[in-house]
């Protein structure tokens, strides 16, 4: 699932830490980009770029937690691995609550970081894949008439045609026509596939 265009962003004001981590990423065949502050990262990052973020919690200027808030606010779902030299537990809890993937205390085992970065990249790829599927479904979904959507959701919900006809005050025949149209518009080859699409849409 990992793609070759993923980038590991390393944001740490400490030159040595930043550089050493970049080299570590490189050594396991990953692309890495080091950035000395949160601001630099914000300026450099394109949300379309897949990858993950290794972020120092305490930094002059904008701190790691502030950057996390900012990304959440901007709906950028880049997986974050926090690293800190302070071993500051309340801060770690706060970061994890806000959706950080991991929290590593310096000095950490390199393999631990590498594992977590690998995992984050995979997660990012999955997220990005799921996001692209949902976009397709949603594009199909908007082509349905309200009636067709109503019928589809009730079908996915497992209601029989007759029950739907009664609820929506239409004939069974009409229900079947809406169902056929919806399956056609959504590109579902079977009823089961349609049901899964509805579940995905509601879930993602």
């Amino acid at each position, binding site marked *: 699932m990992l793609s070759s265009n993923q980038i590991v962003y390393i944001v740490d004001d*400490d030159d*040595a*830490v930043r*550089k*050493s*981590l970049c*080299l*570590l990423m*490189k*050594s*396991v*065949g990953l692309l890495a980009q080091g950035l000395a502050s949160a601001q630099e990262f914000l300026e450099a990052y394109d949300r379309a770029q897949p990858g993950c973020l290794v972020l120092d919690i*305490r930094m*002059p200027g904008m701190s790691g937690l502030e950057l996390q808030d900012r990304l959440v606010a901007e709906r950028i779902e880049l997986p974050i691995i926090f*690293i*800190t*030299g*302070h*071993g*500051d537990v309340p801060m770690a809890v706060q970061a994890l609550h806000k959706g950080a993937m991991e929290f590593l*205390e*310096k*000095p*950490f*085992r*390199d*393999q631990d*970081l590498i594992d977590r970065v690998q995992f984050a990249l995979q997660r990012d790829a999955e997220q990005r894949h799921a996001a692209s599927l949902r976009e397709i479904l949603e594009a199909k979904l908007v082509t349905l008439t309200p009636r067709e959507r109503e019928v589809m959701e009730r079908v996915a919900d497992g209601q029989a045609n007759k029950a739907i006809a009664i609820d929506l005050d239409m004939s069974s025949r009409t229900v079947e026509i809406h169902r056929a149209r919806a399956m056609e518009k959504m590109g579902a080859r079977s009823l089961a596939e349609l049901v899964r699409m509805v579940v995905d849409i509601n879930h993602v």
Partner: protein
Amino acid sequence: MDSLLLVVLRSSSSLATGRCRLRLGVRLVAGVLLVIWAMPGLAQERIALQLRWDHQFQFAGYYAAQWQGYYRQSGLDVDIRSAITASGTIRSAIQEVSEGSAEFGIGAADILVARHDGHDLTVLASIFQTSAAMLFARPGVKFKNPADLLTLRVARRVNDLIDVEVQAMLRSEGIDPSAVKPFPHQAGIEHLLSKQVDVIPGYSISIPFLADRHGVILTGLRPAAYGVDFYGDSLFASADFVNSNPELTARFVDASLRGWEYALAHPEEIAARIAKTLPRGRPLKDPLEFNLYQANGVKALTMHPLIDLGHVNPDRWRRMHDSLAQAGVVSGSLDLSRFIFDPVGDVMRSRQQLRQVLIGVVAGGMLLLFAIAGWVWLLRRNVLTATKALQHNETRLRAIVDTAVEGIITIDEQGTVESTNAAAEKIFGYASHEMVGQSVNMLIPSPYREEHDGYLTNYLETGIRKIIGIGREVQGLRKDGTIFPLELSVAEMTVEGKRQFTGLVRDVTERHALQQELRARQETLTLTIENAPVGIVTTTLDGRIISANQAFCSIVGFSQAELEASLIRNITYPSDIRDGVSGMRDLIEGRQTSINLRQRYIHKDGSTIFAQVYLALTHDAAGSPSTCILQAVDRTQEINRVQELRQHRERMAHVDRLSTMGEMAAGIAHEINQPLAAISAYAQACQRLIQSGRTNAGELQDALQDVGAQVERAGEVIRRLRGMVKKGAGQRVLTDINELVTETIALARLDRREQEIQIHTELESDLPSVEVDAIQIQQVLLNLVRNAMDAMQDLPVAEQRVTIRTSRRGPDDVEVAVADCGAGLSGEVEKNIFRPFFTTKNTGMGMGLSISQSIVNNHGGRIWFTGNRDQGTTFHVSIPSGIMDIYAVE
């Protein structure tokens, strides 16, 4: 205890009181002259003493007087001449003195002979109370009494000095001297030993010694044993010389007798010195033994101390004269008054003679009056003039006596006062007429009064002196009944067969009072020193302890006996000895009059004593330093207390540093973790790169270089911490305050929060160094910087700013100011800010500023704060530059 023995000049029956006073005056004048002569620095009179033989112990007293300086003290420069000339001939003392080549000579019976031959000589003192003349017989010869001489071959030099004594002995035994046939006599004893003769004449102080050298013991016979009491060696001079120089003569005799006294008391010393230093005209094989041998004989001849040295009995000289006359050696009678020296009598006698002459002249004039009328008037006028002159002299002398400071009282043999002077009246409170004619006992308090009679009687009977010629302190009784101390010296004199005693009396009440006071002061001083709370020690200039008081003993734990056998340096802390020595040098060389220094002593139990020591010198009469007075104040307790205080403060400071480090732990951990994380990552990366082969040497080299730098970075952090967490040794070293500030900022930045705060420095260059405990001062500065940061917590990070300034404050101090731009201090905070456990923070103990203040104060500095004009507070620390007094007690 001696009583007052007052004495006198003469019996008043034969001479008028006025003349008695005159005589007294002469003596007084002579005494005064003597005192003047005795003063050093005056010109010495050169005189010669002609001995009667070679240098030997026979003349020991004169050498002793010379060597002991008695002559010099008497104003005399005496040339003591041997009788043996350089050419080996013998010089006659009689001849030398008669011709005036020598002023004084040593002779015996020959003085009488010479006098008969027309040499007008006077005997001054008889040293040998008995003659050394003897007859000696060879061993085996029967020689037990003078009668044996009739049958023996006797070597004689008829009528020589020994022979006349032998003749007197024979006569006393009823033997006609001419019945003893004279055999030729030679020097030495060879003719005796070779049996040419059976008996030879000789002296007891040499012949037995010669015999002993030959291994024989001779049989001897002393004329003295047969009632022939000839004087032996006697001092003499020409009568003219004596008459014109009575006081010089008296001085010479006095000094010579003192010399004899010394020689007889130290015979070995003088004998050895004679043998070693005096050249012999007739050399001896073993001069030392000879002189030691003579010393014994000479002592016996002087009959000292049975008879006073130099004592002259005129009757004995008369008997000697008679013996010589019987031998036909001399004829006529002997005028003893001129022949025997009487220092007082001589002067008087000359006046008496003058008076007699005058009377004769007057008588003649009366007779001639009828014949030559014109001369009468002239003669009367002459007589009147001469008499007036005499009266004038008497008046003058009387004036001297009366104005004498010392009381002068004369008494007769019965102790009856004959005359007194004005001073005596004043001393005793009696008018002269109240004393004259009364017993001198009236002036003596009981019980001495009763004893006095006993002394006087005893002396008159036995000649044993208690006070005459000695002088001592006794007690006197005034008319008003008070008893007082007085110094008394008594002179005895025989005038016309009557003994008189003159007492010189000095009231020493005042002197006693002074001595009493001196004693009291001495006692006060001694008590004061002994009981003084400070240690007091006297030492010699080279530090030997002469005395130490109780306080000093208890300071150092040694007893007085232990200290007094020791050197002060023995108990001084080795490294402090040099200071003490240089202090002493400053005192001795006059650069300082007193020295105040710190010395550490080693207590007997081995502990160290800290003392404040004051040194000063005492000086002798000549102004040279003589002893050192050392006073020591024990400051051990004080110093120990200060040291404990300092240790306590250091512990507190250490705790505070640890506490600060605790507060900074997170920041510190970060500062160490950062490089560690980097190192770890680099290491892993390099390993993987190498394994994968996707790398190059340059990349790896860069990485490893970074690894090295990070190791150093971690090390630097640890170094900074190490100073802060270790216990201070309290050592002060000269430190550049600016460096300290820079280091402190580095330390403050360990707490990572602070990296966000701007710290500005304005450091003045060329500040003097300060002698401080660098860790402690850094602790103070760190406290201030951290406080400043805390004070600005509520401000946006960008506005947080700390400024640290260093500057010179006054001529000697260096100041560090730490300014924040916080909200400033509230009144309550201002009041309590330096109090322990006062804090406005959630963390920390509230000890920071309290401990900082203690540290700064202990460095002799000051810490205070001021409000900034715009906003915030500035804390100031000033520290004196230069060397601190490590003993300073705050």
